[in-house]
């Protein structure tokens, strides 16, 4: 591997990893904010417990997103200095705005939320969480504006060989971004939905398994009480509500990703036709959508691919909204790209050993074809499972089957897989460009950059390999630690996040006071750090 390939692997690994934490942060943050609002409105103890339990898991995950996010901002300059020089005038602005307008808000107000349970008035405390969560959504917006400019550069003019921003409005309302933002937020909610569903299922199953909850004669659940802190009948309410919220969120968010994804697809057929043709492994012009293509999809050679099952008309529908328009296949697009952007990389030292090589315009079709299908497949699977879960749990609890419980728990992974597959598809589908050319506007289609020109010329392959190995190792260790902690706190149940349940006799009215505890509790005045380190 040379420096370019190592740098690409590093960017891929660190980004996909970072984007395991991020959707859970965004999605779970929104869900916890809604739950705390419900507690604030109703004062019901189960909502306080849900806030504390899901909030704890949220924080364990949040910190990993923060820690791995710094790498993202630094590595543009470190590993991709030529890219940074080329795009800096337009790409740096959304990144700086993300820090200044969004991430500051998120970090500061989340600190207030974590530590402010006793210091702040309940309404202010709740507002802090909402502000932090809205901050995280804005964060997503700014980052996607930056990314969308790489997919579809707008609002710039070439000056001395570099794109210079001339129209900030165009950059910040790039249609690519406007559909990608809701797609990403729905994708994040799908992660949170499956997370709630799987974990709540496990706890409901455990309560049945331990004989606490039973089924009555009418087939409905009879919630019981065990003489263990936190395992009372309120505990049942915590999990069944969590499960239903999770299932509904999972289904709604899948519908949301489908609608926004369809809009994205239609844009992409115009903006990056090669990416969509490669997503279909559609070699020849046509209308059919491939359900299964065989042959060597990865060979980038269309002669090796046979579409085994094809549904006529669907590809046209995905691209244009009708069933008859011919969609250009890979073969005719190659010629078009060669005519527009050249057959060989320029003889410029910036390309290193690759200078003068023939340009490979077709992305790795194995990745685009299967990435596209995994994204949709995992997403749909999770939504279907959520629907089934709602039906199965209409008795008020889950079936006693251990196998089903395991399935629900492992189902948590499906939306993570869909998110990762979607990003890998859209980033690798853009190759060989790091900044994809914008074919539909006049004058600015010179704004593009080959990935081969983007890497830092002064950084050696050895340095890149060092960082690839170090970061991958650090990330692997931390993933193990995070998952272990999550599992520990998930198994611990509500009482793990609310040790006060174990100390105070089960007087739920106390919890109902939207301040965590009434004035009569001794020791509370000094216990200012209830939720602290």
């Amino acid at each position, binding site marked *: 591997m040379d420096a370019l390939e190592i740098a690409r692997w590093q960017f891929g690994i660190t980004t996909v990893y970072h984007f395991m934490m991020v959707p859970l942060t965004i999605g779970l943050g929104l869900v916890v904010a809604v739950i705390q609002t419900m507690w604030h409105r109703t004062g019901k103890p189960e909502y306080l417990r849900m806030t504390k339990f899901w909030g704890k898991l949220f924080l*364990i995950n*949040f*910190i990993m997103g923060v*820690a791995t996010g*710094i790498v993202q*901002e630094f590595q*543009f300059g*470190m*590993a991709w200095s030529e890219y*940074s*020089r080329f*795009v*800096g*005038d337009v790409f*740096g*602005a959304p*990144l*700086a705005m993300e*820090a*200044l*307008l969004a*991430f*500051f*808000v998120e*970090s*500061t107000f*989340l*600190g*207030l939320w*974590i*530590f*402010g349970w006793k210091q*702040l008035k309940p309404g202010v405390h709740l507002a802090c969480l909402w502000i932090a969560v809205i901050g995280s959504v804005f964060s997503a917006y700014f980052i996607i504006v930056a990314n969308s400019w790489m997919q579809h550069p707008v609002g710039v003019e070439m000056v001395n060989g570099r794109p*210079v*921003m*001339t129209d*900030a409005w165009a950059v910040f309302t790039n249609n690519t971004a406007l559909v990608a933002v809701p797609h990403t937020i729905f994708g994040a909610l799908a992660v949170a939905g499956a997370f709630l569903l799987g974990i709540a299922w496990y706890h409901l199953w455990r309560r049945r398994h331990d004989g606490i909850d039973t089924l009555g004669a009418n087939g409905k659940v009879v919630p019981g009480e065990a003489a263990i802190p*936190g*395992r009372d009948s309120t505990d049942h309410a915590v999990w069944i509500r969590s499960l239903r919220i999770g299932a509904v969120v999972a289904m709604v968010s899948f519908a949301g990703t489908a609608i926004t994804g369809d809009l994205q697809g239609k844009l992409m057929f115009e903006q990056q036709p090669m990416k969509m043709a490669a997503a279909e492994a559609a070699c020849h012009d046509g209308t059919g959508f491939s359900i299964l293509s065989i042959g060597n999809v990865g060979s980038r050679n269309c002669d090796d691919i046979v579409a085994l099952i094809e549904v006529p008309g669907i590809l046209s529908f995905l691209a244009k909204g009708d069933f008859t328009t011919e969609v250009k296949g890979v073969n005719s697009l190659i010629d078009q790209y060669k005519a527009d952007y050249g057959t060989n990389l320029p003889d410029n030292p910036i390309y290193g050993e690759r200078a003068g090589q023939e340009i490979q315009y077709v992305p790795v079709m194995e990745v685009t074809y299967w990435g596209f299908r995994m994204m949709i497949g995992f997403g749909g699977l999770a939504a279907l499972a959520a629907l089934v879960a709602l039906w199965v749990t209409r008795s008020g609890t889950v079936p006693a089957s251990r196998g089903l419980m395991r399935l629900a*728990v492992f189902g948590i992974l499906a939306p993570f897989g869909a998110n990762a597959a979607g990003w890998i598809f859209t980033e690798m589908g853009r190759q060989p460009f790091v900044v994809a050319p914008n074919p539909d506007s006049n004058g600015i289609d010179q704004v593009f950059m080959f990935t081969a020109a983007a890497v830092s*010329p*002064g*950084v*050696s392959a*050895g340095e*890149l390999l*060092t*960082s690839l190995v170090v970061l991958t190792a*650090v990330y692997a260790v*931390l993933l193990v630690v995070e998952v272990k902690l999550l599992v*520990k706190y998930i*198994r*611990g*149940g509500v*009482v*793990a996040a609310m040790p006060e349940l174990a100390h105070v006799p089960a007087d739920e009215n106390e919890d109902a006071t939207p301040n965590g505890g009434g004035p009569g509790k001794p020791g509370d005045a*000094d*216990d200012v*750090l209830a939720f602290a*380190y």
Partner: protein
Amino acid sequence: MDLLPTIWFIAIAVLWTGYLFLEGFDLGVGMLMKAFARNNTERRVLLNTIGPVWDGNEVWLLTAGGATFAAFPLWYASLFSALYLPLLLVLVALIFRAVAFEYRGKVDNPRWRARWDWAISLGSLVAAFGIGAALGLTTTGLPLNANGDREGGPFAWFSAYAVLGGLAVVGFSLLHGLAFLALKTDGDVRHRARRWFVRLLPVLLLPIAGWAISLQLLSGEMWTVLAVVAAVVAAVLAWNFARTGAEGRAFLSLGAFLLLGSASIFGAAFPVVLPSTLNPDFNLTISNASSSDYTLGLMSIVALIGLPLVLAYQAWTYWVFRRRVSDAHIPEAHSFLPAIAAKALAPKD
């Protein structure tokens, strides 16, 4: 006319100064976790002084980095790629430090805590040193060619100035951390922090003074030299305030020292943002490294709205958590009480 690039040079200097002022003390408190705190309760006192604010402080680093990218892309690209390995170390240090804050108390086990305590201490030390080295080198220069790329291999950045800058930020952060602890804690920790502050101030500020003075020798002007003199006065004041027990004034005086010191350093470096040690013609300056006036204008509007807001709500955070923390406030460690036997998901009933 370089009006906007000049404004953005000042803005970035302000962001770095804000970063050092805020994260300086939480880096310092982090470094003191092992050296200063005597037992677990004291460590938790230390942690909880910075607990609500360290993450917000760290965003100043991201903002400084992002603003450099937006306003001076060539500066950002050259500095970050030239310092590849040291910045990798900074990243790893920041990752472990951040995770350690959150995970340290999640398992009630002395070995678990001891590991994360090391992560906090070493992470803070390495991050402070690396960031200091980077800032030192951006004022004194790196071996850059005409394209702004580093010549001479992965360690070509290494120089006495890298060490000086690293020590400067480590020393300042340690002292600032002590001043913060004296201000934010009570009881033994507070008094010990104040004693350490008085005793260590001359040593800990030596490297940052060395950095400021050597820059005056390289490219100082009248006003930047005066700023150095004023900074020394502020340091003497801080020392005297701490000696007489005026912790708030000591902390503010040290802040004034940072402000003046940083003004003298960035002021002396201006208008060069990153000198080339190979050829002065390759120097990156506010004119040849900056973004277009359009982008700088846009960012100026954003900063004019965003920065006062950030200052306001971060100040509010410090107000909310203004109480001193002491041993008495630290609740007992949560003895973890699993509601469910740990055998969940086990293959057998």
